[in-house]
């Protein structure tokens, strides 16, 4: 059960709609050319790789989700999977995205801030449109579903989660991928951070001047190759290994030595049972920004030495953010199958400071394994190995985690003085409100070990909602001007994770999850999987949500008109080692708990109460809520 054979793929991006088109596009002499955005107005002359809109679904789904559904259809067909077969199996769904988890609809915000709550449809479609949860409802599956928003590594992170679900036996089939579209907020935000190029991007070139954003979605179906073979589908390649580390350094900048990126690559190689010499080529992150390409090029040369062969495919696609890791895994498998590594486009004069130059023509592939890297905001590094399938081995099984600590912010906490003291303690100058709440909750734990063996999972429904509102105000109030860069960099879902990682020196895998259907349960379930697969020894889960104009309005409507404040935070530290046990063990429930009441941070009140009275040796159960308690208003009421 434990190998993650790739039995189906679907993709849509600038070089092509569908795997066959992309297969041609990767090697075609003329690649797509980015153009000025056509979906929104802007004064900026920055080209982007937009692709044609997929068909309307009639349900008001956002663009990233529609791209995802399009790629999903192809992947399921490729894997010869029917809905009936999916319902009969333990299916996990992991999707990486940035735009689908940003509550950043500009016209909707403009209405809400004038007090006009008559049309909240875009905000409700955000609630309904969390990609992983959406797919679970759409396909009628019942396994775990997580939407991960780790900025530019999100798609690769979804694949790593899929691999761990399969290795541990948590799932026997996983639908994993990523989706994003070029939004005005990301466009203005990346411009404010001075990382966009006014020209078509040229990764690793001496004259590179930044990235171009792009639309895309990619989906991979992962399962044991034997299971696929039973349907007549040959899974020749597997996702053989994944490594994920955190710089714990800065909210947007990579740490200049690339130490943690190197560790991520080495972890992925080890899990795939390969050495650097076995890797034929590397599909690099290669965004085209001066800093990314310099750090990444140096690290790859350090690991692979003279044998290094690498390219960036972003000159064909643009930087597709949450989709990038997923579509690049698809590209990597295509190049292995075609036995030809594609060139790094528009790198006409390679940066002389790079220790090794990228491929400038396509070259034959003789090996059977390749690497794909993804680097994100906040120093989140993910490396994936795609290789020929190995024989199956038994799965690791699931362990029951020990609870090493739990804390819940009291109502009306934290006060400003407490937050100011925390910021001074850790040298934080401008953390956003959601990060402040998360930090105050984490700080209340008895002990907080950091290091390489600690993983961090943050959970939220609305994300940094008040910071997002500030960004939207900025766009509405100063339409002719640039937006404030830190407003944008603090409004991304993984801002809190980056900050907590830096504060506590957490260098293990870090995942920022977003969702509305029991995201805290999903996070605890994922933590159990990570501990079972031994990718870390402890997991810090921090759930937080903050009150903003928009989150209040949506929450009030979502909860049937009862005014609600969604603000709160809690922290749960889980460990594999019984010596770290402080409050007993955590059992992740299978049947649903229809009676649960949720605290503002999405934590079931019964779970928090059980932990308050728990002691070593007790067993605490965390069950998901019954679907009825999601209380989404039906379409007729909007």
């Amino acid at each position, binding site marked *: 059960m434990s190998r993650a054979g790739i039995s189906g793929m679907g993709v849509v991006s600038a070089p092509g709609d569908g795997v066959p088109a992309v297969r041609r596009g990767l090697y075609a002499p003329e690649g797509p050319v980015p153009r000025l955005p056509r979906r929104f107005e802007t004064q900026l002359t920055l080209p982007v790789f937009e692709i044609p809109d997929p068909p309307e679904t009639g349900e008001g789904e956002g663009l990233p989700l529609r791209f995802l559904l399009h790629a999903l259809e192809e992947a399921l067909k490729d894997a010869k999977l029917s809905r009936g077969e999916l319902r009969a199996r333990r299916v996990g769904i992991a999707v990486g995205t940035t735009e689908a988890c940003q509550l950043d609809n500009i016209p909707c915000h403009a209405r809400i801030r004038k007090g006009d709550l008559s049309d909240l449809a875009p905000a409700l479609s955000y609630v309904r449109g969390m990609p992983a949860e959406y797919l679970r409802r759409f396909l009628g599956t019942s396994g775990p579903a997580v939407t991960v928003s780790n900025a530019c590594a999100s798609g690769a992170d979804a694949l790593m989660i899929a691999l761990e679900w399969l290795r541990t036996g948590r799932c026997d089939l996983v639908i994993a991928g990523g989706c994003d579209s070029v939004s005005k907020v990301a466009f203005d935000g990346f411009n404010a951070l001075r990382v966009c190029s006014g020209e078509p991007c040229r990764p690793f070139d001496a004259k590179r001047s930044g990235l171009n954003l792009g639309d895309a979605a990619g989906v991979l179906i992962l399962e044991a190759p034997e299971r696929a073979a039973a349907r007549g589908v040959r899974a020749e390649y597997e996702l053989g290994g994944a490594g994920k580390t955190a710089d714990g350094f800065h909210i947007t900048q990579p740490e200049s030595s690339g130490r943690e990126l190197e560790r991520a690559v080495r972890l992925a190689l080890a899990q795939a049972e390969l050495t650097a010499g076995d890797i034929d080529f590397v599909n690099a992150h290669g965004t085209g920004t001066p800093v990314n390409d310099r750090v990444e090029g140096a690290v790859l040369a350090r690991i692979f030495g003279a044998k290094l062969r690498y390219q960036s495919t972003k000159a064909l696609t643009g930087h597709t953010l949450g989709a990038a890791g997923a579509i690049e895994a698809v590209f990597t498998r295509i190049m292995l199958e075609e036995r030809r590594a594609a060139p790094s486009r528009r790198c006409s004069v390679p940066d002389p400071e790079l220790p090794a130059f990228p491929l400038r023509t396509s070259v034959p592939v003789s090996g059977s394994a390749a690497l794909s890297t993804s680097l994100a905001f906040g120093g989140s590094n993910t490396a994936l190995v795609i290789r020929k399938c190995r024989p199956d081995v038994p799965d690791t099984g699931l362990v029951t985690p020990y609870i090493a600590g739990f804390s819940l912010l009291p109502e009306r906490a934290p006060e400003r003085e407490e937050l100011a003291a925390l910021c001074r303690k850790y040298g*934080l100058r401008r953390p956003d409100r959601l990060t402040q709440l998360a930090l105050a909750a984490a700080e209340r734990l008895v002990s907080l070990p950091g290091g390489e063996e600690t993983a961090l999972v943050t959970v939220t429904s609305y994300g940094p909602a008040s910071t997002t509102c500030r960004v939207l105000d900025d766009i509405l109030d100063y339409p002719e*001007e640039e937006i404030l860069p830190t407003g944008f960099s603090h409004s991304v879902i993984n801002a809190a994770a980056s900050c907590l990682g830096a504060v506590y020196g957490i260098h293990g895998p870090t995942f920022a999850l977003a969702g509305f259907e029991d995201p805290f349960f999903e996070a605890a379930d994922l933590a159990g999987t990570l501990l079972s697969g031994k990718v870390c020894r402890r997991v810090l889960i921090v759930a937080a949500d903050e009150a903003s104009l928009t989150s209040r309005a949506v929450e009030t409507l979502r909860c049937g008109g009862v005014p609600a404040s969604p603000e709160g935070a809690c922290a749960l530290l889980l460990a594999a080692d019984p010596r770290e046990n402080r409050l007993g063990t955590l059992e992740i429930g299978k049947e649903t708990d229809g009676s649960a009441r949720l605290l503002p941070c999405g934590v079931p009140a019964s779970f928090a109460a059980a932990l308050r009275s728990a002691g070593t040796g007790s067993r605490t159960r965390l069950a998901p809520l019954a679907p009825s308690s999601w209380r989404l208003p039906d379409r007729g009421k909007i």
Partner: protein
Amino acid sequence: MNEDVSAFRRELKENLVDWLQLMDKTADDVKDDEPLFKEGLGLDSLDAVEIVILMQRKYGIPQSQVENRREIFATFAALADFIMANRTK
């Protein structure tokens, strides 16, 4: 120092803490002759970009007029003097 200068410096300190949403500092922590960046207030290059945008929005100083940034941002006092001399609103 005349009263206008001292009153404006006070106001600007409060505004900076507010606009940049500095959590670890109050207006009293901003010293006239300390550097704004690295030591002193500890601002970074993105903060500089934001201050330039805010000078345009709040005081009507066009971004193109903010040349010689090393001098303007040397200390809080230098920044305050520059704004006082160049503000159009």
